[in-house]
């Protein structure tokens, strides 16, 4: 999956005639007035409701269409200050964590998918937000984004995980660790395994919140 980093904290785009983009309502910064905004239950009602229930993504997304004869300009921003990245999917799948999504082309499918037993047992959720199909997808991290090509296992703090490719899966914790977690009531650091690319961010919301909580 080719990826390109954007050097600014906002996304400036030229939308070609007849093209459309999907984003979250709060991400819109500016656009030429003759672009058409449309509220969309993107992917259909069942998927939209499922998405709303299982992630913090709203059921209704904002679809921006260019009905004119020439390209039109628009700008998007992400609520977290940090790097933006654009990935081009070609019949591939990428999983994004909460708050990472910025925008995607109209051809990209957004689905909640079963995350696997490893994810459930390691506390990383039952369903993950997957983006598949063909087209561009823009996502953002909190702070700097770090790209890592994984071929094996990686122990990580999930608060720093932004996105990972389809070849990667969470491993279930070993039985002793699982029992220890249940007894102590603490979570264990999950492990990602497989072959593929993942993106980490240099800051985490929970880390910042803990820091603020200590100073309150």
């Amino acid at each position, binding site marked *: 999956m080719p990826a390109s980093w954007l050097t*600014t*904290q*906002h996304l*400036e785009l030229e939308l070609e005639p007849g093209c459309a983009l999907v984003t979250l*309502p*709060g991400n*819109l*910064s*500016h*656009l*030429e*007035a*003759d672009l*058409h*905004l*449309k*509220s*969309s239950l993107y992917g259909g009602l069942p998927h939209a409701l499922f998405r709303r229930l299982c992630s913090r993504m*709203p059921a*209704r*997304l*904002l679809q921006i269409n260019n009905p004119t004869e020439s390209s039109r300009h628009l*700008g998007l*921003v*992400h*609520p*977290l*200050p940090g790097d933006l990245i654009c990935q081009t999917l070609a019949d591939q799948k990428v999983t994004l964590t909460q*708050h990472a999504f910025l925008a995607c082309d109209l051809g990209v499918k957004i689905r909640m998918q079963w995350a696997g037993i490893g994810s459930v047992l390691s506390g990383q959720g039952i369903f993950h937000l997957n983006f598949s199909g063909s087209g561009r997808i823009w996502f953002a991290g909190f702070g700097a984004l770090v790209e890592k090509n994984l071929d094996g296992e990686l122990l990580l703090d999930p608060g720093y995980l932004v996105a990972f490719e389809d070849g990667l899966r969470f491993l279930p914790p070993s039985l002793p660790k699982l029992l220890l977690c249940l007894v102590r009531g603490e979570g264990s650091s999950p492990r990602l395994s497989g072959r593929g690319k993942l993106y980490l961010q240099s800051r985490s*919301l*929970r880390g*910042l*919140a*803990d820091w*603020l*909580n200590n*100073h*309150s």
Partner: protein
Amino acid sequence: MKSLMRDPCGNSLQLQLNPGRSFWILQRALVAADGDLTVRRAAYLPSRTTAGPSTALDLCENTSSDTRSIWLAAATDSHFFALADGALDMAVRARAFLAAEDGVKIASCEPVFSACQEEPEEWLGLSGSGTAIISSNGTMYQVTIDGEYLVNVDNVICYSKSLSIAAQEPKRPPTRKMANLDLSRIYHFSGRGTVWCQPNQTAALSSLLRPYLKRNSV
């Protein structure tokens, strides 16, 4: 003003004042100044909104015969921008304003985005000649308007007064309301001019942080 210089961290700004020159500075923005500069409270702009704070300005004068320095900082991780020398006629969010040369007239404005009923922000009108310095939360970007644009008010920190502004006309209100796109936050700018925007909205970051914060720290 002789030159502008950012420090390596990018979060403070050093200004060099030529002899006989003076600068208006937002009260909270002054970090330090050379000892022989005169700094006095020179203006107090009352709030034009119901709950907004008043804006206090200090006047920093260089009465010495040499160039002197002052250091400024903004409240957040900031990007600084000097609005062009020459004729200024623009509105600036008071929180984004840092400093201006003495030739710049500064006045408090009526709430600019009147349809935003809870518009808590103070706005300042800048006119006259000279340089004004503004700061943004994140890397500032400009939207050059020649025609018609819709702009999210929360991102706007400054705009040319040559632009006409109107609350977004309700051409397609049902779809926008359904999209959870708060219509009152989108404004219709038309004409020719520039809007300066900031990428980071403190309110948006705050709402993402809220679930993790202890109740008494919100």
